[in-house]
């Protein structure tokens, strides 16, 4: 018979207490990777999968397909292929060009069809079927907001692509959503001084607006900015997304008394509405003793190419342009041009940058665990990605950087030379109080999808 001797009740209690403390402390000691099974799509193999969710059909397809090219180039550079592009210019940077945390980057793609429900379905497939650790991409704010909300529910970080609505990082902001692209408020602040300088302070504006979240907030922001200049708003008319023929909406402008038409349209909508407005002879008219003008507050190189001669002289704003002289822009334009035979659009630029910023945040956090990656992105101050010193603000996940004011080139020297940069509005000027657009980021808590 075996007897346990010399073990007192006190010793048993001590041992039990020590064991309990050890078990409680263990996760903190082995903190990196300790949340192994606790978050959605924790990568276990030697690859990590990104989900590129962009419109490949529908009104914004052209911008979406170009954004996809930016993402694919980013994957090449992250995996150490090609010339490295802006990985070489990002400062500070934890990227090594060997994937992320030693894992090679793979990707899946989806077509959002420029539709909110299709964008959500596609993102859900990427998360549930393809185990995407991060979803990125959009050209419409409608799809960005929908996917951002889904990603919050599923605990997957969403790096939005091209989304310009104030709501994306305003009333619809989410802890798991991040926007590099600028917004409608910033467009209004940036463009207003140039409109006053070019067209004066006594103007009457007529808005045609794409009827969804982006159009509404852009109309609101541009209306506020122009009315502050002293302009009068004659009418604000909503147009369905993707109708193609805008003639019935342009005709009433002729006799409205307006001397400026503001087109809150993007993608194919703008490519159709601007030439149609020009075909109606609006720019040849004199109203109220002034030359009639057309303004497109937010436009891109791809739209400018699509709109042809109609874009000449039109003023708007842009997030980025391939002709910028900084090292980051030069590096990206070179890489992209060699890969695809054309300069990159702002859509491909913002996609490329978002992929790099997410990868860099993972490296700095030392984990793919979303709450830690989010904290690495929040308040991150960086440079070298083409927009000058940039802040990823922690309170709304909006990037703050300078905004470009552009004009359709009157005498292009090549088919790519369609926009002139006529001004830079500083980061300080376009920074605003995050409370202005409301919203609540929500919790960091990871979800298990």
């Amino acid at each position, binding site marked *: 018979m075996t007897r346990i001797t010399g073990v007192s009740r006190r010793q048993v209690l001590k041992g039990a207490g020590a064991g309990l403390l050890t078990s409680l402390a263990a996760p903190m000691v082995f903190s990196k990777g300790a949340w192994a099974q606790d978050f959605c799509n924790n990568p276990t193999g030697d690859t990590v999968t990104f989900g590129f969710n962009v419109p490949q059909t529908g009104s914004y397809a052209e911008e979406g397909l170009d954004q996809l090219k930016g993402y694919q180039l980013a994957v090449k550079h992250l995996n150490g292929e090609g010339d490295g592009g802006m990985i070489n210019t990002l400062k500070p940077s934890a990227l090594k060009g060997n994937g992320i945390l030693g894992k090679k980057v793979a990707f899946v793609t989806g077509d959002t069809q420029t539709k909110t429900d299709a964008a959500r379905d596609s993102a859900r497939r990427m998360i549930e079927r393809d185990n995407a650790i991060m979803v990125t991409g959009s050209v419409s704010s409608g799809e960005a907001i929908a996917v951002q909300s889904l990603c919050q529910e599923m605990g997957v970080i969403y790096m939005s692509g091209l989304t310009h609505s104030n709501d994306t990082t305003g009333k619809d902001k989410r802890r798991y959503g991040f926007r590099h692209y600028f917004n409608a408020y910033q467009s209004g602040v940036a463009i207003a001084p140039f409109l006053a300088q070019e067209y004066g302070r006594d103007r009457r504006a007529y808005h045609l607006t794409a009827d969804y979240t982006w159009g509404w907030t852009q109309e609101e922001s541009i209306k506020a900015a122009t009315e502050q200049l002293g302009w009068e708003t004659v009418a604000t*008319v909503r147009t369905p997304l993707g109708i193609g023929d805008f*003639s019935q909406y342009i005709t009433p402008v*002729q006799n409205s008394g307006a001397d400026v038409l503001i087109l809150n349209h993007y993608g194919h909508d703008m490519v159709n509405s601007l030439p149609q407005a020009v*075909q109606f002879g609006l720019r040849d008219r004199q109203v109220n003793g002034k030359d009639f003008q057309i303004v497109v507050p937010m436009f891109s190189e791809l739209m400018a190419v699509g709109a042809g001669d109609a874009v000449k002289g039109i003023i708007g704003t842009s997030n980025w342009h391939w002709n910028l002289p900084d090292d980051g822009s030069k590096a990206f334009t070179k890489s*992209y041009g060699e890969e695809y*035979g054309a300069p990159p659009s702002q859509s491909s630029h913002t996609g490329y940058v978002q992929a790099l910023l997410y990868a860099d945040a993972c490296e700095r956090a030392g984990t793919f665990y979303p709450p830690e990656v989010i904290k690495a992105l929040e308040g991150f101050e960086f440079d070298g990605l083409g927009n000058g010193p940039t802040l990823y603000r922690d309170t709304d996940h909006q990037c703050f950087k300078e905004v470009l004011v552009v004009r359709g080139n009157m005498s292009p020297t090549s088919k790519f030379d369609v926009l002139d940069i006529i001004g830079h509005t500083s980061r300080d000027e376009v920074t605003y109080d995050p409370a202005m657009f409301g919203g609540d980021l929500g919790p960091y808590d990871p979800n298990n999808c």
Partner: protein
Amino acid sequence: MNVIFAQLLNGLDKGGAYALIALGLTLVFGTLGVVNFAHGALFMLGAFCAVTFRYLITLETVTVDPEKLSPWGAPLEIRTPLAQNWLGDFGAVLIDYSVPISILLAIPVMLVIGVVMERGLIKHFYRRTHAEQILVTFGLAIVLQEIVRSVFGANPIPQPAPQDLRGAADFGVWLGMAPNVLTYPLWRLVYFLFSIGIIGAVFAFLHFTTFGMVVRAGMVDRETVGLIGIDIGRRFTIMFGIAAVVAGLAGVMYTPLLPPNYHLGMDFLVLSFVVVVVGGMGSLPGAVAAGFLLGILQSFASMTGVKAIIPGIDQIIIYLVAVVILLVRPRGLMGRRGVMES
């Protein structure tokens, strides 16, 4: 007053497209008794005849200019269209006028497509119910649009109007107003006149040729025409081909107004069927009148003043008018007794 006149003009080009498609639909229904849901796809195929012609005529040669650099530092590629290389200024004119010239390609292509469609598929459904005809032709429309999608992609392909016809016509000056008070795009004016020309040609063909007279007789009483030894079936096949050509030409000339994509036919199909029903099934004048009427009403419904009273009216006006007309005149504006009433 200017606003009303401007919206009237605006409705005419849209109405022209509706009228042309509805005319073709009615020709097919009136002759063969087939409800052809693939008719919108014929409009789309016509538009892609213009795309194909422009693609062929703008095939390029690429030379490299080592003296100049692209934005990314590579030697600049200079692309010149072959047509311009071979034909000089005439080649440049051909490219500029590619849309109207592509009519020459569209006529034989659409005629062949129409005849093949009728002989290969439609004829097997003459004695079937309208529901079955709708199902099979709708399926055919989906097949055709997916073929176009796989060949040309999903995105709209802009087709520019000729340089001389890109500006605006100053209607105001013609009507004694000050310059630039009432302007209207030249190509839209061209489209309206073109649609009037095609409609006139179809009516003239049906009324002033022996072939047309036989077809009209066959539309009234096919059996009797057959009994006197006329092969009415062959003539109806040709009419199907002509209806395809009418839809195709409407599509070709519409491309500068709306860049075509694979879905173009479906966008117009539903509206055109409403036009046919409002005009009266089987009535050619009814289809034309309803096409212009609904195009103009749609245009007026987009006026700011009208939308302020009834928000969203511009999106539903056509269907609203259709409901009202069918309640008041169940056979449509010019419908014939007994058509689709059995």
